[in-house]
């Protein structure tokens, strides 16, 4: 490509062995190049200029309508890919607490071009951001175009989305957290306090344990690794003396089936209110 206004910065590091702008697929990219926002607002922007534009954003989104008109957000992402600012600048975008759309911009860009260590440490740090933001989805006129989401949910999606297709952009593959933990480089990050997740407030919460236990069991039953299903039902039809055996784990058998106490026991396990009796 001949050098022009849309050419990637020659000093930009190639991302995953490619021109970083190629992370945005061709059609979207060309739509951006020809859209008014790109030409009017994004011309000649540097990292500081992008920061200003990011702070002004009112919503995020990819492309809109039947014409696939690009949103300012996606234009700014492309601009960042073009100018390839230093990763520390992007970290500043993410760490500043005032402008959530700028943070989202930084997070998204970080997920596109960052190293796995940076991605995991920066993005997980933003999982505590519970602010709402507006995302505009392509839809017909009159349909609901606006959707409200939470920053933490968006970030979680960036990290854990199975398809890795967010805002019309295929995210580069990211090594899982387990893999990261197994590696040596992550240990360094963690030593510097980069592993924010590990010190999450709710990590030791009771609720987490309970629900995890319940879910774990359900999954094992599903896989046939554990007998399950219908403990209650069995109990319904079982005569007192002739227990089937096999489910002697907990003390549920002590309670008479069909009695209020029995059900209360069951309901307690499920986190429901107890019966009045």
């Amino acid at each position: 490509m001949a050098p022009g206004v849309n050419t990637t910065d020659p000093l930009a590091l190639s991302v995953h062995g490619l021109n970083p702008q190629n992370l945005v697929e061709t059609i979207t990219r060309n739509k951006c190049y020809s859209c008014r926002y790109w030409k009017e607002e994004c011309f000649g922007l540097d990292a500081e200029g992008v920061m200003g534009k990011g702070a002004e954003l009112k919503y995020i989104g990819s492309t809109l309508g039947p014409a696939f008109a690009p949103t300012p957000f996606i234009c700014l992402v492309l601009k960042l890919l073009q100018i390839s600012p230093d990763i520390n600048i992007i970290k500043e975008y993410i760490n500043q607490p005032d402008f959530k759309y700028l943070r989202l911009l930084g997070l998204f860009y970080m997920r596109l071009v960052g190293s796995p260590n940076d991605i995991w440490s920066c993005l997980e740090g933003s999982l505590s951001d519970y602010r709402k933001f507006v995302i505009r989805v392509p839809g017909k006129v009159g349909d609901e175009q606006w959707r409200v989401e939470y920053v933490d949910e968006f970030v979680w999606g960036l990290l854990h989305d199975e398809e890795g297709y967010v805002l019309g952009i295929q995210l580069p593959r990211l090594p899982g957290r387990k893999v990261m933990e197994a590696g040596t480089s992550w240990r360094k990050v963690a030593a510097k306090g980069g592993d924010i997740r590990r010190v999450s407030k709710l990590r030791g919460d009771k609720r987490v344990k309970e629900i995890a236990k319940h879910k774990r069991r359900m999954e094992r039953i599903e896989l046939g690794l554990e007998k399950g299903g219908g403990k209650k039902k069995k109990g319904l039809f079982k005569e007192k003396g002739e227990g089937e055996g096999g489910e002697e784990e907990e003390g549920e058998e002590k309670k008479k089936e069909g009695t209020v106490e029995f059900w209360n026991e069951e309901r307690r396990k499920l986190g429901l209110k107890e019966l009045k009796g």
Partner: protein
Amino acid sequence: MFLSSEAGDIDSLRHTVDDTEMKNFDDNMLKAKHDPTKKVKRWRKGMGIEAEESDEESDSEEEGTLGTLGSALGGQTGRREDKKGEKSEGEGNNTTTNNNNIIKSRIEGRKQEESDSDSSDSDSDSDRSGRDRKPRRRVQAAVVVKGGKAPSSRRKVVGDDSSSSDDDSSDEEEDEAAKRRARIKAKMINREKEEEKKVEEKREEEKKKKEEEDEEEEESDESGSEEESGSEESSSEESESDEEIPMPKIAFVPKSKRGTIAAASKAHSDSEQSKKKAEKEKKLKALETQMAVVEVLRKEREGNEQDVSEDQNDLAGIPDVDEDDDNFPDEDSEGYRMWEDREIMRLVEEALEKSREKNKQALKVEKKRMAKMTDEERIKEDETLLESAKRPSREGGSQGGPKFLQRYQHKGAFYMDSDKMDADDVRLKNYHLQASGDLANVDVKKLPKVMQVRNFGRKGQSKYTHMKEQDTTGESLAYGGMGKRNKREREGGEDGRDAKR
């Protein structure tokens, strides 16, 4: 000249004034009419009129001829000619001969135009008769006609014929004609000079430009025709006529004297009024262009707004989500509490990742173990698994399942909130208790086999009891089946024994 009788036009004879002419006519009729070697078209009545007046035609008639000729040609050559004709007509006494005279003069004109000699002959004839004006006029008429109509060879022939019959001594006549021409030329020059003088006088008067122009016209006309004699009479006549009706002039301007349109317009714009007008127009135009620019800009802006509304800056209906952001982070806020729930679910997901990994491992181990087992071992294990997975028999239970052939009652599908449940809740009821009825107190199993059906002895009796009896899975030896007999033995040993009995 050929005769009017030859032309077949008898009407032309009616208006002859005196008898002498008639006599002459009769004499001529007796003469050889035409050259037999040459082809002559015969004319019949109604075909068209072509007549030739005789030399002896009266003066007045001549005048009339000219006049009508002029009027007839007026449409073609211009009104000046017409007026001349009218004037001369007025001179003529007989005005009733108009129509015929028109025709005659036309013919004469044609003839004149066809051959110079012809015209000169006729002139000489008229000269001989001592009338000066007549032939001159004739010539004029001929000249006029020249422009109007194209000559035809046939007529020329005819004309030659007639002229030869008329002329006795052509040589003498030619000499005379030459002399006459010289005389005419001299006269013309004189006349022109006179005219010029007149024109100058008139210009001084500065009165009527039109008149002047007309005079010039005449000049040009007269100079154009050699044979025209500059008689004072005619000129005076013409000037009189000019004074009467002013005519628009079509003047010829030589190329060297022609100006360009631009020059003319420039001269026009020099005047102050035009200057003012131009200024006004300029201002108006500037205003118009300004308005146009404004309009274009407005439209552009509108168009842009439309574009924008399509994609980017139209924030209509955007939900306001920023209300709590000022206090972020705030652990007492609703947002924080909701976040806690989400965070817990995320942590659970993370925690489950380990167990999922374990599950995968366990499945792998299980697969390996199964792979090591023999077929018999596998079948045995499957059986035990099936046995353990079997639901406890409901039949005959005092509390539980329905009896054999007991009528099934559905407990009913009603929405009930699972949060609310009392001790005597309907959902805690045993729905499999035998309802009172025919077979309420009968143990159907003890009845003979034929009677172990629904509605025994009735019209609606069915031979089927329950679905399991119809189950044929495993009866085939294919697909790892054990065969019908084996299955029967295995499953319902008692039944088989029963059947034997």
